[in-house]
C-alpha cells in the first residue's frame, strides 16, 4: 500500500516538474527582467522576457540545472550592478555564475561526460579534475557537452584545444 502511494507521489512530482520546468533562457530572462523591474519600476517583465529570449539564442547553451541557481542570483542582483556600466555587470554576473557553478545539480549525464572528458584532456597533459569538470560543465547544456566531447576525437591535442576554445569563445 505504502509503495503504491509512493508511486503516485513520484508520478505526480514527475509530471508536474516535467511539464513546468522552464527553459534556461526563460529562467535567465525572467530573472533579469524581474530585477530590472525592481530597479527601474518601468520594465514590463513579460514583454522584456519575451524579447530577451528571442534576442539571446545562446542562452539555450546553459543547462536548466545551471540556470536555476544563476537566475536566483540574477534576480536579486544589486541595481547598481544591473543598471551600471558593463564592468559592474560583468563582475556581478561572474559572481552569480561562480555561485551557480557550486550549487547547480550534477546530473548523471554531466558525470558521464566528465569521466570521459577529464581522461581525454589528461592524455593531452591537462590536469583537470573531475570535480572541477562537473562544476564547470554542470552549467552547460547537453548540446554544448556533446560538441565539446566531439572535439576530443580530433587527431591532435592542439586541434582538440582549438576546437574546445572555439566553442566557448562563441559563448
Amino acid at each position: 500500500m505504502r509503495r503504491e502511494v509512493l508511486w503516485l507521489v513520484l508520478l505526480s512530482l514527475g509530471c508536474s516538474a516535467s511539464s513546468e520546468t522552464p527553459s534556461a533562457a526563460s529562467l535567465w530572462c525572467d530573472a533579469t527582467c524581474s530585477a530590472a523591474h525592481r530597479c527601474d519600476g518601468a520594465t514590463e517583465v513579460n514583454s522584456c522576457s519575451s524579447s530577451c529570449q528571442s534576442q539571446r539564442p545562446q542562452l539555450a547553451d546553459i543547462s536548466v540545472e545551471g540556470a536555476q541557481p544563476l537566475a536566483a542570483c540574477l534576480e536579486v542582483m544589486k541595481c547598481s550592478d544591473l543598471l551600471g556600466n558593463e564592468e559592474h555587470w560583468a563582475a556581478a554576473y561572474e559572481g552569480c555564475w561562480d555561485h551557480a557553478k557550486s550549487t547547480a545539480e550534477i546530473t548523471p549525464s554531466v558525470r558521464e561526460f566528465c569521466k570521459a572528458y577529464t581522461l581525454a584532456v589528461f592524455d593531452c597533459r591537462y590536469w583537470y579534475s573531475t570535480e572541477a569538470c562537473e562544476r564547470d560543465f554542470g552549467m552547460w547544456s547537453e548540446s554544448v557537452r556533446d560538441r565539446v566531447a566531439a572535439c576530443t576525437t580530433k587527431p591532435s591535442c592542439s586541434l582538440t584545444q582549438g576546437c574546445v576554445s572555439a566553442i566557448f569563445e562563441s559563448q
Partner: protein
Amino acid sequence: MRQLCFPLVALALGCSASDGDDARLGPTLLHPAPGCESSDPARCDVRLPECQQRLLGMAACLRGESALDLPPIQVLSEADYASFLTQEMAPQMKDPNLEHVEVGLNLLGLVERGALSAQARAEDYAKFVGGVYRNDTKDVLIIDHGGSFDAEAMSPLLVHEFVHALQDRDLDLSAFRAQASSIDESWAYSALIEGEARLHEERYAAAMLGLDSDKVDWSAHFQNALVDDQQRLLAEASPYLASYKYFPYEWGGRYMYFTWRTGGMEAVLGRFAQPPTMTHTLLASTMDAVDSHFTASEVKLAAPPAEWTELTRMTLGAWGMHLAFEKTLGLDASRAMALAWRGDTLGIYASSETPAHSAVVWRLELADEVTAIQAKAAAERLVGVANVRQEGQQVIIAKTDGSLPVDWAFQFD
C-alpha cells in the same frame, strides 16, 4: 496503475532531481592510485605539515617503499629564489672561459649571446621552477610565483620533490650524478632522475584529479607532453641551454614510463643501477625503452696552432646534434639524423689576439657515410659552406667570430 507508473518513475526521479539536495548525486568518485589504495590522493595545502607528511607517504608508496623523515620545506618567492641563485652562480661567472663558450655555442645557433650570464640564467630558472629538492642540503624549496600561487595545486609537485628525496636516500644523487663523464651523459642521468619523479607525479596527479588510472592512455599522455614541450623548447632563443626545462622531464618521463610499464619499480630501480649513458637512448625510445646498440666513438680533435688555445671540450651528443640541426632540417629530419649520431667532440678555443676571439670546432661521427653527407649539407646551411668538411662517416664544423683561420681543425686523423 502500477504498470503505467513504472516507466514514469524514472521521469519523476529525473525531474525531482533538480528540486533539492536529496536528489543530487553524491560527491565525485575518487580513484586511488593503484597500489596505494590506502593513501588519500586528495590535494592539500603543501605549506601544512600534515599535508606534507601525507604526500611524502604517497611518494614512498608510489615507489613501493617506506617513507623517510620529512625533509625541511620552505616556500620562497620567485624574486628571492632568483636572487639566491644569482649569488650561487656568481663564482661560475668568474670563469674567464665562459664568454668563449657562449660565443662558440652561439656560432652553432645553440644559445643566444648573454644567455650564460648569471642573472639571465637565475631569472630563467627561478621563473621556471615550481619546486626543488636540494640534495646538498636535503631540503625542499617551493617557489611562490605570486598571484597564481595555489598551495593545493602544488600537491603533485611536492610528490615530485619527495621522489627526489627518496632517490637521494637510496642512491645518493650527488654520487650518481658525479659518475657522468660528459655533458651528454649528464643529460641522460638527469632524464632518469627527473623522469622517474615525473612518472610518479603524474600517477599521483591522475588519482588526485579523480581519474581512473587504468583508463588513462599513459603512452599518449607522456608522448603528448613531449610533443608540446618540444615545440616550446624549439621556440626558445637558447634551445640547448633551455633543455634543462624540457629534456629531463619529457624525454625522461616517457623513458621511465616505458621502463615502469615493462617491469614496475624493479625495472625503474634497475635503470639507476645501469643507466643509459647518452641522450641517444632517450631519443631512440619512442615506443618502448630501448638500448643504443653501439658504443659512442671517441672523437679526436686536431691540436690547434700556437695562435689558438683550447679552453674546453665537451660532448653534445645526439641531443645537441638534434637541436643544432633542427634549424636547417626541421624536427623529424633532425631527429632522424641525431639517431645516426655515433659520437662527437666539441672544442672551444680562444685566439691569442687582443681582444681574444673565439672559435668552435665540432667533430661528429655518424652511423654511415650517406648520413654524414646529409649532415654536411645541413651544417653548411647552418654555418656556411667554408666552415664544414666531411670525410667518410665524419663531419667537422669549425667557425670563429674573428678573422684568424681555423683550417687547422679540418684534419681527419
